[in-house]
Structure formats: structure tokens, C-alpha cells
């Protein structure tokens, strides 16, 4: 029986992961951490004195609150053996300069502190973390196949948001061969959810409205549903070895199609004008310059998931496509085929 801690459980992917783990009989207790108050959806999970789920508000980016939490009697009593870290994607993942905490972007600071405390905590044996597949260096081309051994984008000019994902990836990668702590890193591409919600895409996620794309380029975007991500986390928790795994769904679509599916408007701008567009966007009060500079505007990728199939026995079970929603509008939906 596993006793699991889930970070950012109040955010959409965290909620989905928590729900999946809650219904897994092999998980005896779940400690959920979040920034804000517990979501209403957790009411039934946390109700009662013998509830399997407990919720706590902790600012994971700050040293003192994290340290206090990991040394608290509550954490010790919970005897957590597995930590599921879902880095913050937030509502403004596309912002050019992620919030800086002690000189580090918030996402990086969180991952670093969490790793440090997982290594120190005696009861913790497993760390399953979600990473982004946008850490890979994209070679030119509309679509490129990438496996776990593909090169990471260590270009110093990489946009800040992508850089923070790379930093998180390297922090976790550095401990993959740790003898005491089993580290599993799941690299996911653009995550979508029923209703047309979209996370982790450097350009399209974040606030709605218009988004630019490079004229003459329509890169293929690999997709995965939030439910499949939750299943992958579940598989990783109960797998035996450490490792880095690409997780992706069956579908991959061009950026323009994805934007249409999630109801985002995109404008094709000639490449040389993109920097001008970035300045203009900034003048309009939108921090979109990150989304204007990345290679992902021109080059796409799909992920080779054979390693996850073999080691984690993970296979995507959701189809992603357009379906008519309750209000009659066509929206992106994920349909389970399991």
C-alpha cells in the first residue's frame, strides 16, 4: 500500500491525478498540497475523520514553508513514501518572465526544494515528477520524432518559460540514478482536457485571446489527455525502476488546428515581424514575448513512447478530437476507449 503526497493538487492536472489515485485501492493515504483553498471537488475526498485524503496549503517555492511542512508532525505521521510532483503550469504559463523566487523561476525553485526535502525525508522512497517535452531541442522541420535520449535545448536564448522546464528536468535527471530515492520523470507534451482546456503549451496555454504563429510554419503538436497523464502517473508510482519517460497520446495535430480546437485565435505573422509583434504585444500590456521567440513556433515534434509502453505498461487510452458539447458548440473532447 502506498502513501502518496501530490503537489499542486488544486490545479487541473493535480486534481485529475488525485482523483485517479483516490480510486486506486493500492493507495492507502493521500496528502494533497496546493496554493489555494481546497477545490470544491475535494469535498467528498476530505470529508470524515478517517478520510484517505488530507489537504494542506503550502507555498512550495519558498524555503521556510516547505521546510516547515516536511518537518511537521503531520507529514511524519502520514509516513509518505511516494511524492508526485506536478510542477505549476498556472494560468499564465506563457508569460515571458516566470515569477522569480530567490533568483529562480517559481517552477524551478519548487522542484529544487522538493527534491532536496525528498532526499532528506527518511520515509520517501519514490518521486514521480511531471516534466515538459518542450525541453527538447527542436531540429528544423514541421515534425520531428523525439525519444528520451534526444538532445535538450540548452541554448541560452531559449525563452524563460521553457528554460524553467529545462532546469526542473535537469534537477530531476541528476537524481535518476540515486540509490535511495527512485526518481521517475514523465515528459508530457501539450496536455488537453475535455471542454477545450489546454496546458503546458508555451504558446497557446495561458490567457485566451489572440496568439501569433509564424507564417509559413504550422508545426505538429503532440497531444495527451489529462486523464492519460494521470494514468501515466499512476503507472509510474507502481513501476519498479527509475527512469525518464515520454508520455503522449495517439493524436498529433498542426498548431493551427489545435488552436481552432481549443477556441484560440491565431494570426500568422512573417518571421521577421515576430519581434515587432512581440514589442507591440508588450505595449498592449500582454507578456507574450516568450511565445514569440521560441523554436516551437516553427518546428514541431511527436514523442516516441515505446520506453513508457515497455517499462510502465502505459498506453494512451483516450482519443482526442472535436465533439459537440452540451451548449451545442464544437469543442475539443477526450473520449476514453479503454
Amino acid at each position: 500500500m502506498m502513501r502518496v503526497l501530490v503537489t499542486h493538487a488544486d490545479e487541473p492536472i493535480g486534481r485529475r491525478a488525485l482523483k485517479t489515485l483516490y480510486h486506486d485501492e493500492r493507495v492507502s493515504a493521500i496528502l494533497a498540497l496546493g496554493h489555494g483553498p481546497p477545490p470544491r471537488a475535494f469535498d467528498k475526498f476530505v470529508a470524515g475523520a478517517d478520510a484517505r485524503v488530507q489537504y494542506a496549503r503550502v507555498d512550495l517555492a519558498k524555503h521556510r514553508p516547505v521546510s516547515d511542512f516536511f518537518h511537521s508532525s503531520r507529514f511524519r505521521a502520514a509516513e509518505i513514501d511516494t511524492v508526485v510532483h506536478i510542477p505549476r503550469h498556472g494560468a499564465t504559463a506563457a508569460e515571458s518572465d516566470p515569477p522569480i523566487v530567490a533568483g529562480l523561476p517559481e517552477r524551478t525553485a519548487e522542484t529544487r526544494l522538493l527534491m532536496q526535502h525528498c532526499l532528506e525525508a527518511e520515509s520517501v522512497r519514490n518521486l514521480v515528477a511531471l516534466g515538459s517535452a518542450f525541453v527538447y531541442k527542436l531540429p528544423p522541420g514541421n515534425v520531428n520524432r523525439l525519444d528520451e535520449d534526444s538532445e535538450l535545448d540548452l541554448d541560452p536564448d531559449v525563452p524563460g518559460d521553457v528554460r524553467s522546464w529545462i532546469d526542473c528536468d535537469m534537477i530531476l535527471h541528476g537524481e535518476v540514478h540515486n540509490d535511495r530515492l527512485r526518481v521517475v520523470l514523465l515528459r508530457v507534451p501539450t496536455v488537453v482536457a475535455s471542454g477545450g482546456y489546454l496546458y503546458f503549451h508555451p504558446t497557446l496555454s495561458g490567457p485566451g485571446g489572440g496568439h501569433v504563429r509564424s507564417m509559413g510554419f504550422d508545426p505538429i503538436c503532440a497531444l495527451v489527455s489529462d486523464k492519460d497523464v494521470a494514468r501515466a502517473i499512476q503507472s509510474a508510482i507502481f513501476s519498479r525502476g527509475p527512469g525518464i519517460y515520454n508520455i503522449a497520446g495517439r493524436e498529433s495535430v498542426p498548431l493551427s488546428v489545435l488552436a481552432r480546437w481549443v477556441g484560440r485565435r491565431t494570426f500568422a505573422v512573417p518571421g521577421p515581424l515576430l519581434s515587432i509583434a512581440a514589442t507591440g504585444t508588450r505595449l498592449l500590456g500582454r507578456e507574450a514575448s516568450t511565445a514569440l521567440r521560441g523554436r516551437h513556433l516553427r518546428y514541431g515534434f511527436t514523442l516516441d513512447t515505446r520506453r513508457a509502453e515497455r517499462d510502465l505498461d502505459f498506453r494512451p487510452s483516450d482519443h482526442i478530437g472535436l465533439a459537440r458539447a452540451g451548449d451545442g458548440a464544437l469543442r475539443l473532447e477526450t473520449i476514453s476507449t479503454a
Partner: protein
Amino acid sequence: MSTESRDLARVAEVLVEAGEALALGRDPFEEPIGEDPLAQRLDALERLDRRFRAAPRRPEPLRPVASAESGSSLRRAPARRQRTQVPALAEIELPKPSGLLDHLLPDESRRVLMALSHMVEGEGPYDRFGFSPDVTKAAFPFFQALYRAWFRVKSHGHANIPGSGPAVLVSNHAGLLPFDAAMSIVDIALHTDPPRLARAVVDRWAGTLPWVNVFYARVGQVIGTRENFADLLDEGQIVLVYPEGIEGVRKTIAQRYRLQHFRVGFVEHALRAGSPIVPMAVLGSDDQMPVLYDVKPLARQLGLPVAPITPTFPWLGPLGLLPYPVSYRIVYGEPLRFHERFGPEGADDARLVRYLANQVRRAVQLLIDRNR
């Protein structure tokens, strides 16, 4: 000298006496590679075989079952992918023609396109390399018109193209614009049953070109990265490579039909994937747009792979880049099954890989010389 090397030397002498080797003129592939690694390998295999036959058979030692703790998961080979099934042409039931495209294409081509549309798994409109059957269908009438009317392609040796499983097709490359690749792809699709879509490996530079990169991907072409190549072969597809690369495109009229330096990555991938290498020659592409001179400094300044001067370019502007209506001939050679002899571990031997690449180059050059 080993028996095998003596035999090879004898075969060469016989060929010279018969005057066949003279057809090549000066052998352009002579490279100081030291002792022949192929002969060395053959000798080693022969010795191993003799020893194995002489030794009494012992039961194989039991191997420990691999577990997750026994080693890093990063080192293990990935699982084989389930291959997509393209139906045979006879299995395709054609619906009534609807729309202009259906009327433009003969039934035979529509059947081929319908069969190829099965390459896309699931319900999505694209495969994982961005191939779109709809875009291919829209583009096919144009390329088929080029195939039949403009280049008047004739081809033979289709029996050498494997009907199923992975294969690496290695061809010569010329003619500034890659019409040779387009004609080869159309030819392979029209002359295989079930039809096979050759996935041509294109230069990374093409991936940076607006619109071109999208079009290439939608009609099934891929950028030449290690992962793309390995994944295609693993899925049992035909990969069409031009190991001369950009050097083939920029060769001048004086070098026409002479192969340039070959890159070797395709041999490595073929050995690892256990796929045969099929040499093929495209005759006509060297004449479609003969390069008189390549202004390399200008190309460097403009960031282009080549700045050609041809009889019509730049004098006629962009129109000068239109290929001349030369007649194409495509010839497929006997498959070279290096993987059966050397196995995937042969890919780790750099000298052997270089040697095999030169053998492929020689085979392609022979095809060119014999069919010109």
C-alpha cells in the same frame, strides 16, 4: 591473403579481362582504407564457424531474467512498434468519383491513394510525421502529370523493392529541385502492391523554409534526424535516402552522373533495423537543370546551400528554375542484405560502416553506368 580475398581478387581480374570494369573508367571510389574490413569479417566469421562446428555442443547457460533493478532502463532496446497495415489494391473498394480530384485521377491512382490513407493510425488526419492523405491526394494529380507527361518516367526492377518490411532505398541526387525524389516516390507507389509510400529523408535546411516544410511533411517526407530515420525503419517503412546530400544537388555539369562523397548514417540504421539496402539510379535528373557554376560565396552570404548558374537561371528569373522536359529512367538494383551478415552490432564498427557505404555507392554508380 585469405581464401575470400583471393576469390575477390580473381573475380576482379576476370572482370577486367572481360572489359566490364573498364565501363567505369577510373574507379572514383578508391580510398585508402587499409586492409579490407569486409574480408577480415568474413575470415573471422569463417573461423568462428569452423570452431563452432568442431566443438561439442554444450547446453546454453541460463541467463538471469532482466528485472527493473538489474540495470538502467535507459540501456535497454526499445520495443518494436506494431506496424500499420496497408491493404492490397485488390481489397480496395473505390467509391464513385466525387469532386474534381477524383475525376482528375485514374482509378488505379485513386486506389493507391486510398490504400496509403491506411497509414494514418486511429482517427486523426495526420500520422506522427505529419503525413496527410488529403494533402497527398490533392498534390498527386500534379506529380502524376509530371511523371507521365513532363518527365515520361520509365522504370524497371520493381521486383527488387521489398513488398513489406523496412527497406532503405539509396539513390543518386541531382537537379537543384528535388523532382528526382518526387518521381521516385510516385513510381514506387504506383508499382508496389500493397502500395508503399517511400519516405524521403530531406535536408534539415528544407525544414527551415516557410510553406515548403509543411508541404514536405504533409506528403510524407521527413527531416533526416537519427530519431526519424530509426523510427521509420522500426515501423517497417521504406526510407529513401540521398547520401550525397546537398553535394549531389550542387554538382556541376562536368560531374554529372558521377556520385559524390556518401554519408554513412543510412548503413548504420539499416544494420540496426535489420533492413536491406536497395540501390537505385535515377537517370535524367542530372540533365533537368545542369549547373554551369555554383557561386559558393554568394550562397554563403544568402544562407543558401547553392547559388547556381544554369543555362536559364538567373537569366529567366524564377522561370529559369523550371526543369527541362528530360526523360527519366529509374532503375532498382538487387537488395544488399548486409544486415544478414553483420547484424546490428556491425553498426558499431565505423570502418565497416564506411566500407559498406562505399559498396552501396559503387552499386549505385554501376546502375547508373550500365543504364545510361
